[in-house]
């Protein structure tokens, strides 16, 4: 077996383009996912039964089917509903935002549930409305409690973006596999991709762990 580093270097620029898309996809899905996930979490904890059930149905649906299947769903549905071809890269933004919301929702819900009931009562007794109470009392504490979990989910999300390969998008893996098939350098390309994913995920998860231990002391 000969491993040819020379097979990787000329394509590094293309790989980095792919990586850029992976990162963008991760950031957009995180931003939308946390926003929508928070709304879903509030809905799941709402006393309104219909809202509660709708949110639970949404979350359980997306947590029960494979992400690969959801990627195919949106790849097919988005053009059907919008009547135009938007391409794999763009439909993936929607896929990940919607899919990851379900996972972020569960983390944020756990955060809210970890807050003592007295906090809610205290806020209401102060004359806060439900919205104010959430905004100024509950959510800041809830988020603080689950920051490490949210960040770990972002790392998982970053790894999951590699699945857009199945619809031919040019993320990091997609870029590598295109080069690999063109140059017949499967071994070099897949090893390179594995190393890049590993270094990024490993370093980030170490940072999250350090953050976690610092927060833990404060509490």
């Amino acid at each position, binding site marked *: 077996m000969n491993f040819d580093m020379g097979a990787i270097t000329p394509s590094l620029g293309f790989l980095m383009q792919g990586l850029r898309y992976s990162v963008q996809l991760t950031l957009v899905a995180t931003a939308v996912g946390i926003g929508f996930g928070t709304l879903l979490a509030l809905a799941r904890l709402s006393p309104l039964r219909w809202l509660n059930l709708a949110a639970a149905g949404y979350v359980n649906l997306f947590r*029960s089917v494979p992400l690969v299947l959801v990627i*195919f*769903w949106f790849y097919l549905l988005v053009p059907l509903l919008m009547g135009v071809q938007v391409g794999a890269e763009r439909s993936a933004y929607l896929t990940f935002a919607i899919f990851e919301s379900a996972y972020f929702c569960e983390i944020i819900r756990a955060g809210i549930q970890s807050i003592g009931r007295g906090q809610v009562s205290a806020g209401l007794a102060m004359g806060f409305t439900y919205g104010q109470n959430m905004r100024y009392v509950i959510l800041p504490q809830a988020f603080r409690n689950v920051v490490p979990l949210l960040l770990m989910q972002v790392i998982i999300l970053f*790894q999951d973006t590699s699945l857009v390969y199945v619809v031919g998008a040019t993320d990091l893996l997609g870029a590598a596999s295109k080069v690999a098939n063109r140059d017949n350098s*499967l*071994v070099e390309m897949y090893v390179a991709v594995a190393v890049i994913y590993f270094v990024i995920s490993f370093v980030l998860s170490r940072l999250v762990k350090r953050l976690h231990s610092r927060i833990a002391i404060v509490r």
Partner: protein
Amino acid sequence: MSAYQWHWGVIFEPVPDTGEFYYQWLLSGLGWTLTTALAAWCIALLVGTLVGVARTVPNRLVSGLATAYVELFRNIPLIVQMFLWFFVLPEFLPAAVGNWVKQDMPLPAFSTAVMALGIYTAARIAEQVRTGILTLSRGQKNAGLAMGLTLWQTYRYVLLPVAFRVITPPLTSEFMNIFKNSAVALVIGLTELTFQMRQITGEYAPANPIEVMTITSVLYLLVAFSANRLMAWLERKTRIPGTIGGGQS
């Protein structure tokens, strides 16, 4: 969207030129999904327990190796790991073995998928086994050793039986994950459920993809639900009397 012709019976139609029906393809895919996930689960439980235990033993070398295993397999996406096992590993094996893997290994996609999925899930199970062991009070281990049990016996008869009960809830979600994750194996050509769905909607019945995908999704929901119920039953059966989750008896 208005032009879409709904036809739910599409899966009961015959596949052109084969004498088979679409629903048979989906069922065969479901069979491969279940077989792959369950076979990988056996590997994952075995390896995951060993690695999880290894992370807690008082031996720096062993626990260091176990930590390296977990970090390695948790920080590379599963789909990349599938490619590594399928395309890269055979190139690094001795020529004779590598050629056997590439040419003569029975069910190449299935064997590789089971291996990759099992090893990947093992890293996640190892973390849970370790957490489970660490939640037990230190006295448990000392008591075991003081009784004259060897370290191995202490793990086998004192620590693990309790640790596994503690981690049943996270193991449940891991058990549900493994069925979902098996869909990734379509990239190395395993003809599991999503692969079959893709094949049907892509090449054969492009007019009715929504129906085929809905039915596929429902099958996955059923699998997830069954896996969840099975683990809930197991949790009830094995719970420890006297703990908060354990009820009265």
